[in-house]
């Protein structure tokens, strides 16, 4: 194997695939990047921790084909520090050692036999469709916030991905709050598909997705594959049964009100400065076109805020975790937020009409 590649291209490529590099050293070869030089096709970079796999192709002048696995963090550190010039790679196949030259720098890095590196899984085409990247990114941002960090319920650490012939949905919940978002989309699939995407996959995907272009999505029972901007992104799915979200989303309400997003966000944030010293519970009271926000009486002090609202229906009181409200206010992009309420022991519902997004927050019981 022998090739030359531009420092910037290589650095950019390594940065993309590094997200799938294994962090644990159980299988040392997985802490490496698989590099394959193909004539007329450039360099194919590949990494996987067996949960997630990423493949990315970059331009390079290939003089001799071949492949090697090099330790990812070492290689990335070296390439980062090299100047923006051509880097020359040469492989010593007897020792699986790569020689790296750039201007007056010379490195020799020991790697691994590439034949021992696992192939990224083949994904059968049970469902295959295209999706605008900007929409996908928006959906992911809205559901990431509600995924659970409780490893004892793996299903809840991910998001349910529902694909219907003319509609796509994502849902996540930690059982105390829930995000639901849907998008109209002709998918051309003939049967509904429901899979659970791991939370970590959503995080990585969100950071790699750009606002333009579209993603090609392929799903089977065990894996999902996303192809976008020259990136092939394959993730294992979470097995298990996702809770029945349709049952818990209320289809009626007693009161509704609208509030200015940024005013509300700032008020809740300030009230939370006191509330978070205890359990971060705040009391919301909506009455006479005014939303009152109080920190729950605790040992640390007291905060009171008022925000003007437009309200229909009778007075409402509810106690909630301020963090759950702040999380959603951060990801909404409208100027106004819509709330719907039934009563103090029913979920607080936040809706975004332009997005078909619904967010539920379960209350904390009040002490009385």
């Amino acid at each position, binding site marked *: 194997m022998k090739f030359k590649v531009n420092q910037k291209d290589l650095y950019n490529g390594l940065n993309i695939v590094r997200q799938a590099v294994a962090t644990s050293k159980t299988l040392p070869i997985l802490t490496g990047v698989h590099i394959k030089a193909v004539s007329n096709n450039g360099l194919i970079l590949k990494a996987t921790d067996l949960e997630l796999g990423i493949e990315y192709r970059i331009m390079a002048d290939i003089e001799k084909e071949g492949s090697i696995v090099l330790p990812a963090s070492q290689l990335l550190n070296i390439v980062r520090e090299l100047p923006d010039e051509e880097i020359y790679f040469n492989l010593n196949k007897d020792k699986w050692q790569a020689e790296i030259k750039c201007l007056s720098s010379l490195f020799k890095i020991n790697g691994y036999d590439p034949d021992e590196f696992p192939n990224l899984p083949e994904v059968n085409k049970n469902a295959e469709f295209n999706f605008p990247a900007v929409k996908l990114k928006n959906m992911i941002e809205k559901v990431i916030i509600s995924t659970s960090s409780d490893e004892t319920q793996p299903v809840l650490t991910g998001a349910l991905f529902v694909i219907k012939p003319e509609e796509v949905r994502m849902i996540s919940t930690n059982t105390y709050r829930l995000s639901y978002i849907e998008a109209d989309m002709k998918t051309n699939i003939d049967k509904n598909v429901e899979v659970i995407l791991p939370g970590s996959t959503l995080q990585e995907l969100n950071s790699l997705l750009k606002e333009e272009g579209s993603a090609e999505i392929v799903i089977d029972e065990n894996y999902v594959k996303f192809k976008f901007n020259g990136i092939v992104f394959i993730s294992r799915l979470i097995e298990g049964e996702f809770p029945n979200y349709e049952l818990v989303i209320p289809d009626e309400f007693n009161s509704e009100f609208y509030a200015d997003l940024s005013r509300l966000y700032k008020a809740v944030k300030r009230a939370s400065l006191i509330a978070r010293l205890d359990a971060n519970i705040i009391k919301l009271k909506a009455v006479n076109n005014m939303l009152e926000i109080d920190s729950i009486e605790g040992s640390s002090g007291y905060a009171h805020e008022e925000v003007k609202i437009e309200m229909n229906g009778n007075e409402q009181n509810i106690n909630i975790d301020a963090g759950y409200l702040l999380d959603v206010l951060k990801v909404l992009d409208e100027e106004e937020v819509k709330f719907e309420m039934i009563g103090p*022991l029913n979920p607080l519902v936040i809706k975004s009409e332009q997005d078909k997004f619904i967010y539920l927050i*379960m209350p904390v019981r009040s002490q009385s």
Partner: protein
Amino acid sequence: MNNLHIIHADMDAFFAEVERIDNPKLEGKAVIIGGVGLGDRGVVSTASYEARKYGVHSAMPIAAAKKLCPDGIYLPARHKRYSQMSAEIFDILTKYTPLIEKISIDEAFLDIKGCERLYGKPLQIAEKIKKEVYSQTGLKISIGLSVNKFLAKLASDFDKPDGLTVVSDGDIKTFLKDLRIDSIWGVGSKFKKSLNEIGINYVKDIWPYSLTELENLFGKSGVKLYYLSRGIDERKVEVRNEIKSVSHEETFFDNVSDYSEIMAYLFKLSEKVSFRLRENNFYGKIIFVKIRYDNFSTVSRQMSFKRSFNSTDEIYKFSKKLIDDNNLVDKEIRLLGVGVSGLVDENKRQLNLFENNKKNNEKRDLDKIVDDLKRKYGFNSISKARKLFIKDKK
């Protein structure tokens, strides 16, 4: 200015004395209280003063106690009865001040500042408490009266049993000077050894050392030592009445190594813990298990959850997971314990979107019915078949 306002009240040989009251024949006898019906395998929880003369002390294995004091009267502990007596005594203490820090079933700190108008001078209050406890329960209590918690505790211990020791500002030096170094709170056997090595045996031996010297030698413990050795202790009497955790443990009659049997005991303990949680309207967020092996080495493990729980099933499931994940039953076990902490009041609980489904409601109803039956017909009247794996030990 004399600032006597802290009382440390400590019942004398509490369990043994309660037994003596209930059975006057035990008067003047060496009485040793151990675990419940455990034969020689338990440890001494209380020894009467007569038994202490033989060298029997609490936390000593019963078998060892029997060697020292073969003619002693060995009785199983009756915790219900002791709790009842303890409640009576705390009722008396509460009359004198609301500022009570309960340390254990038979020990408490009282802050009596501001109570003088009602009950007289600090010494009179201490005397009144002693008298009232004795006349109402027949039990003797030792009291230490001083300017802070550290000195009050030392004082109550000074003239046991039935003692009343006062250490006022002016007496501090005289009182402390000849006390052994390990009477200072925080000086264990290891720390004592390193102090002895540099010639510190009595409290007065610390005095020549400066704060900086002690800090350099022993770090934070050195700083604590500096202040306590001079009778300086700023800790306040903290009123604690809320329950922090609910747990149960059991020492086995014979060591157990059979996995199914251990799980059966685990279920039994889970039942007890969850029953008590539900009785008090509590949910918990942290589960912990404790295991003592044949060689007396003890391990405990815990796991926290974002969600709160109190069902028998969940407590059993989570504690089992702790044991399985940490591989805790690889040798013979003599004690098993399960507990729940991070308690949340049912009335302040974060509600869950999915808890109102059929399966959960059925489970909750089942727990409720089982609880009712247990209350009515006794704890062992109903249980899951899993408990049948507990082998009968006559």
